[in-house]
Structures are given as C-alpha cells and as structure tokens.
C-alpha cells in the first residue's frame, strides 16, 4: 500500500536516522523535539504499460492523436532527455524506452523511413554507449546505433544548429529537430517547456534560457517546432532488493534492520572509497513507470506536475528554522566516481529549497556531506578549473562576472571535450553555481557537517564537526534560543526532478 509523506516527531526514545553521506552511510541521533520529514513512498507502478502508453498516444492532451500525424514520407525525429542516467541502473526497462519503442512501432506501421533519435542533452555531457543502451534497450540501440541514426545534440556544432529567428542569430535550435515534420520529445520526468527547449538549443540560447525573461524564446521555439511531447514518470524503490531496510522508515525498523544498518554504516565508513564504489556499481534498483502523458507541451507538463503534487504534498504546512538534508551517492551531474562539491551543494540546495520549501526564508540549512575538492577528470575538468581559479577568488556571494562566463563558454579545450568526449560543457559549472547562489540568497547560512573546512569556505559554507555544533551555530546566527529543526529524509522513492 502506498504510504504518503509523513512528519515524524522525534522523542528521546526515537531511533537514529540513517543518513547518506555521499556513497557512505551514517546513523545520526536527532535531537528530541525535532522532526523528520519522510517523503512519499514509491507509487504503484502501471500494470498494463502498453495499454497505458497507447492510451496516452491515442488521446493526447490538446493535440491530434499521434497515429493521425504520421505519414510515410515524413521526416520524424524522436528526441529524448538525458534524465536519470546518474541513478543506479534499473531491473525494469526505462520509461523512455517503453514510450520510444511504441512510437517506433507506430511509425513503422505508418511506413515512416526517415527516423532519427536525438539525445537532448543541452550542455550536459554526451551519453556513453552503454548508457544509451541502458536507456533505449538493446533492440533500439542496436538497430539505430549501427545505422548512425542516434545523434547526440551538440550545442557547439554550427552544422547541427539553425537559427529560427530568420537570420538575426538570436535563437539557435537543433537543425534536425527544426526541420522535422514531427518532433516527438520523450521526457523521463516532470519537465518544463524551458528545459525541453534548452536541451535542444545552441549554447548561447541555452544560456539565455537560464535567465528569467526566457518566455519569448520558449514561445518562438515551441511555435517553430512540430512538437509532440510524451512525458513519463518513474518511481523507484532504490534498494528494494539488496537493502530493503533503507526503504523503510526508521521507526518501523525491526531488530534485523537495525543490525543490518549498523553493519552497513561501519562497513561503508571503513572501506576505501574504491571499494565502496565497486559495491555501489553492483547494485540495481527497481524503477517503474508510474505515469505517462502525451500531447502538447504545456498540457503534458501541467498534467505530470499535478501527478507529482498529489504525493509530494507534505501532510501539514510545516515550516522550520533549521532544516538538514543529506546527499546520497547518485545525484544529478555526479559521475559514478565523483560528486564534486559544487554538484553536491546544488543537489542539496535544490532538494531543500525548490517547490514549497519547508525551511522558512532566512533559515539555516544544514548539509550532511563529506564535502571534498575531488573532481572527475574525464567529465568535470571545467569544474576543477572553475573551483580553483574562479571560486578561489570570489568572496562570499559575489556574482560571477559575465566576462568569466564568456571565458568558460568560449574555451576551446572544454568545448572540444564537450563535443568529443564525455565532459560537461565548460559553462556548466557557472550555470549550476549561479543557481546555487540564487538558492543561497533564500537562507541565512548553509552549514556542512563533516566537510573539508577549506572547501566549505570556498563555497561560502561553514564546516562543523557535528549536528550539535551546527544547531548551536544556527541558534547564534538566528539569535533564537529555541528553534524548530527538521531533517528532510532522503526520499525512498525518487520522484525525480532536476
């Protein structure tokens, strides 16, 4: 039975809470009187997947049924986002794959020959072959990959981009997408029109979309593209098979679970990181399709969002002075080996502060994370550079100047790595950092427990040894004797958002 979200009041006899600490685990006793906020459990998966997808495609929201739009001589492009690739591989087929397979079957029936798949990656890194195979399934990957019909969007390739504003070069969008008679965009989560356009845009257009006055661009792009959106939502029980207790809420743990958790904590804390990583690599998750919607972008996005809102609404209108979050192993933009400090901070901030935040404006956010200056050289060289050369010189909340953005955006070396290797675009760290700064304006301070002090300082955070100290500092910062403290428990079901 699906359990909704829950606010649990901690008493003196409450059990410790299991914290993710990057790829490791830790048990933390929460102070009595505080609260632990558990997210909703994974929703019941769709049982008859084929019918559900077919239903969505046949009766799309605010759009003609897909079958009626397919013609034999048409140019068809299926774009799909690069979401969820940071998560553990699933036992179950990916939601995108299920939708794409069905779309391809319909296209085959209609006799469409000119079909191409595009990874709508925006300024993110290219997907590796194995990741592509994981998302698309062996059948589609083999059939299309060998023909060279799977392309990865390249925001830096002038050949692949076209200006949709008739020559003044303002809005650059993927050429194939623009020239297609029909562009089917398959998303892996509740997305937004802005994200869809950005994922297929040229570099400068994508950067402009990050700014607030982006509606014009979105509108003209959506007007130009013959877009049919297929949105999927998958929920996961992250370790349902290998470590079921991680799924359960701590107050419901049995003795066996408690023992297992203790063992897990001590093992992950003592083994070298490479061993912990090897352990994570062996894990498979259970991610299943829970919703699928198709039709016009606006309607689909709204429908998907409301599906998420149904479950993620916390039962009470709780607001706290201090909120703590932990950072698990698999987070967006992290690589299997490294979550660099900026990416980790970004994850924590967006989880705590997006939507309707539990933390009051001007409150204190506490991070449980062993923050360290470690970077994946294959994918995040630009982060390393940004962290050392730019962050090292900025003070506190000082904004990153437009000059520096231009420097990183135009850096040939990072551009080359973005285009040919599996690296994020050179400007990626700046986009993420600016978002971090926006979030950090909403809070009084961000404290990090167990992080390297130098790294914390460089990010504008403060490093503390333990939760008690952090709460003490929060009390000082907020000049309050008594404060409401809650811990936002890592969701067992990843209602994935980005």
């Amino acid at each position, binding site marked *: 039975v699906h359990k909704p979200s829950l606010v649990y009041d901690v008493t003196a006899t409450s059990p410790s809470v299991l914290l993710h600490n990057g790829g490791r685990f830790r048990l933390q006793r929460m102070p009595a009187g505080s609260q632990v906020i558990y997210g909703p459990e994974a929703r019941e998966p769709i049982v008859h997947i084929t019918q559900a997808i077919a239903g969505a495609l046949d009766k799309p929201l605010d759009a003609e049924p897909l079958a009626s739009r397919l013609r034999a001589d048409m140019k068809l492009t299926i774009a799909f986002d690069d979401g969820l690739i940071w998560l553990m591989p699933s036992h179950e087929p990916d939601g995108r794959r299920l939708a794409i397979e069905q779309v391809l079957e319909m296209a085959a029936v209609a006799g469409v020959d000119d079909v191409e798949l595009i990874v709508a990656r925006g300024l993110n890194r290219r997907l590796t072959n194995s990741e592509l195979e994981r998302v698309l399934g062996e059948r589609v990957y083999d059939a299309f990959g060998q023909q060279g019909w799977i392309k990865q969007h390249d925001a830096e390739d002038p050949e692949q981009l076209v200006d949709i504003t008739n020559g003044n070069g303002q809005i650059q969008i993927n050429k194939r997408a623009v020239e297609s008679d029909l562009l089917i965009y398959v998303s892996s989560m509740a997305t937004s029109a802005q994200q869809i356009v950005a994922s297929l845009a040229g570099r400068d257009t994508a950067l402009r979309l990050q700014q607030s006055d982006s509606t014009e661009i979105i509108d003209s792009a959506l007007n130009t593209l013959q877009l049919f959106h297929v949105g999927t939502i998958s929920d996961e029980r992250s370790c349902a098979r290998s470590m079921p207790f991680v799924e359960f809420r701590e107050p419901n743990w049995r003795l066996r679970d408690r023992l297992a958790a203790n063992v897990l904590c001590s093992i992950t804390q003592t083994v070298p990181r490479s061993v912990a990583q090897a352990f994570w690599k062996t894990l498979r998750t259970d991610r299943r399709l829970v919703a699928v919607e198709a039709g016009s972008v606006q309607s689909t996005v709204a429908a998907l969002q409301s599906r998420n809102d149904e479950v993620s609404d916390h039962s009470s209108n709780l607001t706290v002075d201090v909120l703590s979050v932990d950072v698990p192993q698999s987070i967006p933009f992290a690589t299997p080996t490294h979550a660099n400090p900026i990416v980790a901070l970004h994850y924590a901030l967006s989880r705590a502060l997006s939507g309707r935040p539990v933390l009051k404006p001007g409150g204190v956010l506490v991070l449980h994370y062993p923050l360290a*200056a470690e*970077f994946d050289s294959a994918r995040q060289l630009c982060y*390393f*550079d940004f962290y050392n*050369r730019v962050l*090292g*010189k900025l003070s506190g909340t000082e904004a990153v100047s437009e*000059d520096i953005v231009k*420097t990183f955006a135009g850096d*040939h070396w990072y551009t080359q790595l973005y285009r040919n290797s599996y690296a994020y675009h050179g400007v990626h760290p700046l986009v993420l950092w600016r978002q971090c700064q926006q979030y950090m304006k909403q809070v009084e301070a961000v404290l990090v427990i167990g992080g390297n002090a130098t790294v914390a300082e460089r990010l504008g955070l403060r490093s503390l040894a333990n939760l008690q100290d952090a709460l003490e500092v929060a009390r000082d910062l907020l000049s309050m004797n008594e404060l409401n403290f809650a811990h936002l428990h890592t969701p067992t079901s990843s209602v994935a958002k980005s």
Partner: protein
Amino acid sequence: VITESLSGRTIAITGATGFLGTVIVERLLRSGGGCRVVCIVRPSRRFSAWERVRREIVRNDCFDRLRAELGDEFDTYIDEHLSAIAGDVSQEGLGLDEDGIKELAKCDTVIHSAAAVSFDSPLDVAVEINLLGPTRVADAIHQSGANAHLIAVSTAYVAGNRRGDAFEELITETWYSPDVDWRAEVTSGRRVLADAQNSSRQAEQLRKFWKTARRELGPAGTPLIAERSEKLREDWVKQRLVEQGKARAQSLGWPDVYAYTKALGERALLETRGDTAVSFVRPSIIESALEEPTPGWIRGFRMAEPIIIGVGKGLLKGFPGLPEGVLDVIPVDKVVAAICTIAAAGPNEQPGVYQIASGSRQPLKYRTLVDLTTEWYREHPLYDADGQPIIVERWDYPRRGKVQRQLNEAIRALTVAEHALQVLPLRGKPGDWAAKLEESRISAERARGYVDIYSAYTESEARFRIDRTLALYESLDDEDKKQFNFDPIDIDWRYYLHNIHLPSVVEQGRVRNKPVKKTSIDRAARARQTLLSPARQMAVFDFENTLMRSNVINHYAWLTSRNLSNYERVALAAKRLPRFPSLLAIERKDRGDFLRAFYRWYKGAPAEQTRQAGQDLFNEFVLGRIFPDGIQRVRDHKAAGHHTLLITGELDIVVEPLRELFDEIVCARMSEEDGVLTGELIEVPPVGEARALFVKNYADQHGFDLSECVAYADSSSDLPILDAVGHAVAVNPETRLAAIARRRGWFVEKWTSEGNAPLPASIVDRNEVATSA
C-alpha cells in the same frame, strides 16, 4: 703608539677573503693610521683579484662600521689604501707576475693567513697550502728583495694531542713535537694523490662507480651516468686523501690533517726562511667577534656553528667530550688585535711565537659551554616546520667510541633501507618515506662527521700558555691596551655566548627562530610564480605519469580487449604474459628499444578502426586518469604566452585529442600497409638523452633560451631533459628522481587524478582568466 707605528707602512696579506683575513684588513684600514694594505688574492674564473677584493671583502658587512665612519669618503679611502695583487699560495713563488713582485717589494710586513682551515681537508690540498704555503710566501718575499717582517698565522693545536701546558716555543724546539722530515711528507703527500688517482682508474673501481651511478640515476642515459660516475670517482679520490691525511696526522700525534700540516709548515718555514724575519701567531679556535668591528661578527660556518645549530634543532643530543675539559675558544678581534700589535712592534731577532688562546687565562669549561648553550636555547628556541618550538634536552657526555659505533650502525641500517626503497617503483606517499630515510641518514652522517672531526677538540686537555703574548700586552701603554685589547681575561663567557655568539650563529644559520609556520602553500605559490613568469619561453611536458596515471601497455590492453568478452580477455592476457618479463627488462635498459619492441604488438591491427578507437580510448580511459592540475598547468603556461611542447612515447592516435592544449606534440607514429598497421614506427619519439638533445635543437630552431624553459617529468629516465632546462619540475617523482630533485632543489609537484592540489588563488589574476581563452 700602535696606530702611529703602522701609519705609512705597506702591509701585504694572504687569505684576505677568509674569516680572519677580512677582519685583519678591516682593522688595518680602520685603525692602521692610514697604512696601505695589499691583498694577495687568487683570481677566480670570473673575477680578477681586485674584483674579488671588492666583492668579497669590501662589500662585506664587516666594513659597515668603517663605511659609516668615513661616509662619502669611503670609496676614495678604499681606493687609496687598499689594493690587490694576483697570487696563489699553492703555486711556487705565489704565481706572482712582475707587477706583483714589484708591489710585494714595497711591503714592510706580510701577514700570511691563507690556510685550508677545514679539519678534514684532503691530504694533497692541506700539504700544498698549509705546509708549503708559508715557505712559498717567504720565498716570494726573498725573491722580491723586500725586507719584510713575515707574520705567519698558525694554530695553537700544532701542539698535538697532548696533556698539560703547551708553551710558546718554536716547533723545532718543542720536545714533544716529532721531528719529521717535511720534505718527505710533501713527496709522499703528492704520491698519495697520484696513487689514489691511479687506483680510482682501475677497471674494477671504474665499474663500481658506473654501477653506483646507474643505480642512483636509473635509465637516465649514458652522458648523465658518465658525468655522475666521474663525479663519484673524483669524490672517491678526495675521500681517500681525506682518510690518508687523517691517518698520517694521527700516526704522528696530531688530531687532524690541519694541525699536522700547520705544524710541518712552521718547521718548513723555519728551515727555509733565510734572513726573512718571522713571527708565528698561534690562535686557538677562532669564533665571532667580541667587539670589533661589531659584536658578533662572523663569516661563514666555522667549527662550532654546525654543532650549535645541531643542538638547537634537536639533532644532537649528546656530544663526546670531557665535561671538565677546556674548549679553547678565542674571539676573532682578540687575534686581530694581537696580530696588529705584533706587526707594529716589528720582528725580534729570533723568530717569536705568540699563542693567543683563552684556556690558560680565562678557561671555558666544556660543561659551562653546554650549560650556557642549552640555557640560552630554552629561552630562545628554534622552531620546527610546524612552528612548534624545539625543546633542547639534557645533554650527556658519552664516550666517543660508543657514539661512533651507534652512529655507524644507524647509518648502515638506513642505507640498506634506502637502497631497498629505491629499487621499488614507489611514488607519492611511499616516495616520501625514502625522503625521510635519506634525511635521517644525512643527519646521522653529519653527526658522525662532527664526532670524528671535532671530538679531538672537545676532548683536548692541552693548556695553551700565552706568556709571551701577555708580556707583549703588558708592554703597551694604556691607550693601546684599550684600543688593541688581546688579553682574554676580560671575556665574560656567559655574556659572550648569550648576547654575542649564539644570537649571531643562529642569525647566520638561517634557521627558524620565530614561531612562524611556513606553509607549503607559500612555497608552492612561489614556485608556480617562478614557473609561470612571463620570462619563461617554453614548457616541455612528459605524458605518462606526468600528466596522467597510465602507460602504453595499459593503452594497448584497452584497445585490443575493448570488444572482447571476459574469457577472451583472459586468453589474450595469457598469450601476452610470458613476454612481459623480457619487455620490462628491455625497458629498464632502454626506453627506445622497449617502445619499438612493444609496438610490434600492433602489427596487423586494422588502421582506420584503431584510429577511431583512439578517441574512445582517450574518452573512456585516458581522460579519467589525467591529472587536472597538470592539464591546468599546461593551460596556465599557454595563457602566460609560453610555447607548450608534449613529448611522449605514446602513439599519435592516443594523444591526438590533446592537440588543443599543445603547440607541438612529439609522439610515435606507425606506418600502415593496405589499411593494416605494420607494427613499425615511422617516427620513433626521442627518449632518454635524445630527448634533451631534441629539446635543445627544438629550442634553437624556435629561438628559445633553454635556461628560460620549464620541463615536467616523472622518472629518472627524463633526467637529461630536466637537467637541460632552466626550470625542472619533478611530477609525482619515483623514489630515485625524488632523491635527485631534493638534492638539486627542483620543484616537486604531487598531482592526483582527483586534482586535490588546488592552485593557490593568488597567482592567476582574474583578468588572466578572462583573457586566457
């Protein structure tokens, strides 16, 4: 009276650039009533005698007082009263030219203070300078026709290892001094040199030097190993002569070669002086100045200083010596005052001997010295690298034999451990173990050296009488007594050590005497500032283990096995495995042969496919092992406008994606036939010494100055290239290279694939960031 008597004289001096000589020159110029001073100085390769005098004597802070007293007239005064003639005491007739002889002829007094003062000089050097020096000076005076008074500075320790009073007697009249034929000693000293040279050139020895040089440098290429091996041979010869000298000295009852050759020098001078008037001045251990020219003035590191610093650093916790024995120390200005007085007084009929020492008049007990030193250090501690004060422990007075045995054992154990570590291919932290071992070994060896050389002095029980010197002092009038005070009675040892000598030594020793923690960041930042200075012109990078953690074998394995199942991979590895040992053996010998042999494995591979696989290899394997700091450094060099050059044994297909970072890539290229790789290289990348040659030619072609180039490399096979450029950087050096880098003061970088050695923010200006694109 002394000043007046010196006034108008011309006084020549040898050894003017030495510790004692500098002070004599200063004193004569300042208090000599305008006498002229002629320095007999050996010209160096770069500087003439006069230039040396200007640079090494006049510019020394010893002259600060005179400079202040004379003000603007200082330069004119120096030009008028100080001159130099080129001469060398190790040559017959001092090697004087005609002008020199003429100058010398004008002199009234010649002070001979040139000496090989080191207690462990090689026998040949000590013989030439200490033994024959005085005789040669007398000869030169005689030949020039001058009627000069020769004041020969000797040492009180010519008395040898004896107990009881040592009087101011001529060496020939001292009953306990062995009657040695100095000419025979000279002949045998020279023969010992020839013998040592000969035996060092025996095939067996030469092979040993070569082997040792190879072990130290690894595959660094023939020219460097040859250079090192020759250096080892020269060191060996020198060591032989040091040992011979010491043995000969001790066999005759002198503590070391210095006292032995000085004693025979006195003997030789007495025999050959002819009618030249001679006075001997025998100081004991000369230390920093009590008052003149300034309290605490000292030049260079002399006898007691290394020990004093060693104690302060906690390196020495005991030193053999007799606690109740007397350590005979005399401040340099006392010696100088005595010499000036003797010069002014002129010669006696018979050669006079003046000892100037404190032991019989104002003795400093060894125990007092130790107590005062430890007491002072407790209030003025030195600090370790972490900014923590070093506590000086209680001192003990062990027997010499025991200390020597302990040190010998420790050194042997440390050497074995060090060799063991050098054989292992260690990098990073384990590499630091070797550094620590080396450090301990060197300090142990240094301690053993101190014990060997100096314990004769701390254990000495001779009492140097200074009756004649005192009588001379008593004969002075009150004004002279005040001005030229050489009576040791007024030395307050506590005051001298605490307020004058120890502060001066610590100051000179460049040791940490303030609790400031030197952060490694500072050093790293400075290093990088040097490397990235706009003055640099080119940066040369090695690839494997310098910019990334991988090698050609890994890359081959990745390329050949990427499409294989696990089973096939194992089968392939099994097929290749037996050939690895021979391949590794080749690599140890010659990297070029290794590359040629290894690349044969690519024979028959489809060319186009392999080329495409190159980018995959880079994306999926190489890039993840790359050192972000290294890449950043390449970019920094580029941003600073330097030419960037990559030299690697990798195949072109592997390094192709790096073109963006480098102005030039030199790598291996393979020929192909009918779309298949032949396994033969069209271009063999330069390795070992060929790399250095390549870089030299490359720099010439592009008009770069090698001394303004920077090279980054990780292994001792890259030594030639590191050696060739002006700024060498050892990246994650293996043990051997780490040892060499430490010795030569090269920069060392420790880069990891996570890049957690962040570039200090201070160096790269934000403007540079903005323009680096």
